[in-house]
């Protein structure tokens, strides 16, 4: 549902704590609201402001939209304080989303860092819906510590659903038996057929920068790497000018970009 810069009234149905800093909001829009994995929405909190988020839920269940939100500033702190029953607004969806048709018939390497797993979860649900179209689906995910991993239960169930799941944490604790180190460290060990692979990366800019480096070193071409670029998206319609990235607007032409399209733009990783 899109209409100018106006939002659909939406009820906050549930708040799921993921980690100390991250919560998932389960939202019920009062009007039909659909989106594609990777497209983003603007979440409006009346009287407080508005910010862009990419839904983390399955596009196939659009009556209930989930946003996984990290507390990072003033607005997200207020959002974390919302109680179920609160009325908020949703605008969108905006942007292009993941080009699933380009991924079809390929080995899909999905690389997430921190709360960057949120949009990838929406992608994963879409992919699992048509799992047979993809040769391989590999998820590589890293967080600061075991306590900072989000969607823990799902990570386990995805592994059973035919996904190859690799997880690392920057700092281990007593409970952790898995890999330790930044997520990019896992990439050299992942087996993919570089001729037939595509990689999808979402996370903090520095993580995307180094992941891209590792993926190129593995032999992937820039045209096989898809990145989620973060800029200050406001209007969502390519008009307000805030999210310009080179000759693109992230809101309209992204937020997912193939690396060969944005390679060389000054300040790409800033």
């Amino acid at each position, binding site marked *: 549902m899109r209409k100018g810069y106006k939002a659909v009234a939406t009820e906050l149905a549930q708040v799921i704590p993921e980690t100390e800093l991250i919560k998932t909001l389960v939202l019920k829009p009062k009007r039909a609201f659909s989106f594609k994995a990777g497209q983003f929405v603007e979440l409006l909190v009346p009287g407080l402001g508005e910010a862009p988020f990419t839904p983390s839920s399955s596009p196939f269940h659009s009556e209930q939209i989930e946003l996984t939100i990290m507390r990072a500033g003033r607005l997200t702190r207020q959002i974390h304080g919302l109680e179920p029953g609160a009325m908020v607004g949703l605008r969108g969806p905006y942007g292009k989303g993941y080009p699933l048709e380009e991924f079809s018939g390929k080995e899909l390497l999905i690389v997430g860092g921190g709360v960057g797993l949120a949009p990838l979860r929406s992608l994963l649900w879409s992919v699992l819906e048509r799992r047979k179209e993809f040769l391989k689906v590999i998820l590589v995910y890293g967080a600061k510590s075991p306590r900072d991993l989000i969607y823990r239960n799902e990570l386990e169930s995805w592994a059973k659903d035919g996904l190859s799941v690799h997880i690392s944490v920057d700092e281990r604790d007593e409970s952790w038996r898995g890999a330790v180190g930044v997520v990019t460290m896992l990439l050299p060990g992942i087996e993919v057929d570089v001729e037939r692979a595509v990689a999808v990366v979402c996370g903090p800019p520095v993580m995307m920068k180094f992941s891209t480096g590792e993926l190129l070193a593995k032999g992937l071409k820039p045209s096989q790497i898809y990145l989620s670029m973060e800029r*200050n998206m406001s209007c969502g*319609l*390519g*008009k307000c000018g805030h999210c310009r990235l080179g000759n693109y607007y992230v809101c309209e032409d992204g937020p997912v970009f193939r690396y060969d399209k944005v390679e060389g733009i000054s300040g790409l990783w800033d």
Partner: protein
Amino acid sequence: MSSGRTTSSSRCLISSWEEFLGWLKGLAEQDIIYAPDFSGRIRLFNAEEISFLPFPFKRSLDNFKCLFFPPRRNLGSPFILETEPRREAKLVIILGLKACDLKALEVLDYVFLGGEEKEEGYEQSRASAVIISSDCEEPGENCFCLGLGGSIYPEEGFDLNFSRLSSGRLLIEIGSKKGEEFLAGAGFECASEDDLLGRSQRRREGGRLFEARLKAKGLDFRGIDLRALIEASDKDGFWEKFSERCVECGACNFICPSCHCFLLSDWEMREGVARFQSWDSCQYPGFARVAGGANPRRFRCQRLRNRYEKKFVFFKERLGGYACTGCGRCIEACAGEIDLREVLKDLRNEKGI
């Protein structure tokens, strides 16, 4: 733009400013009239005041975008309502636009009427406006439109355009159906071939004089790929040299007829929360800042460069032409005396062209 385009004489009428004013007076009772006043500021003129319209108009001091994209627009509730309040659209007659102003409107049209969704408020103000432009007889001291490939007379984008002939008569070119309807019943005679030749001659002469002036000042940038120069302009210190004088006031953006960036914000009003669209400036430190404080354009030099990239690279790629019209308003508005012409000249000189 070529001067060789011929205009069919049936689309051109002959009148005088006084006769036209007589016609306008009859409309002024019910319509709204905006034009620059004697000081160059655009304002509302009522029926009694229109005889004071400063014709022939010079390039206005402020810009016309405020009539289509106001500094602050109340968009009503931030939520989609079952029924949106309808707004009565009155005819708005706008006089005094120059070729540069029309070119800037082209940029705004691209932004607000293009893309996946048109912007309703802008579309309405455009639809209810009658655009009356006129040839530039006296380009201002900071004008350099020709040097960027512009023109001192409008060729498209107007409903009516005025040119003065050497006889003092007024040649009115009709540029649209709306313009034709506007003059229906005015009874102005058709222009002759001689009138059109007279206009061409005056335009050529005016252009030649202006061109010579710009060339003497090194302000003819035609044939120079400003896009490429700006793309390659990351040499240390180039932008700092200018940005160190920037006080981040945003005046360059607000006075610019083609700057279109805005901010959406919600405000508690007596009738409930209302969403406002307000002009924003890419020179403000927080313009590109994202959640958590990361800022891809943290430094003033990056923000100054952004303005040039947007005008000369982004729009060149998207629209096929620069979004800078060479009107020179930002030069007049800048508190730090940053002169866009000097920036462009320096870019060119660095490359030794």
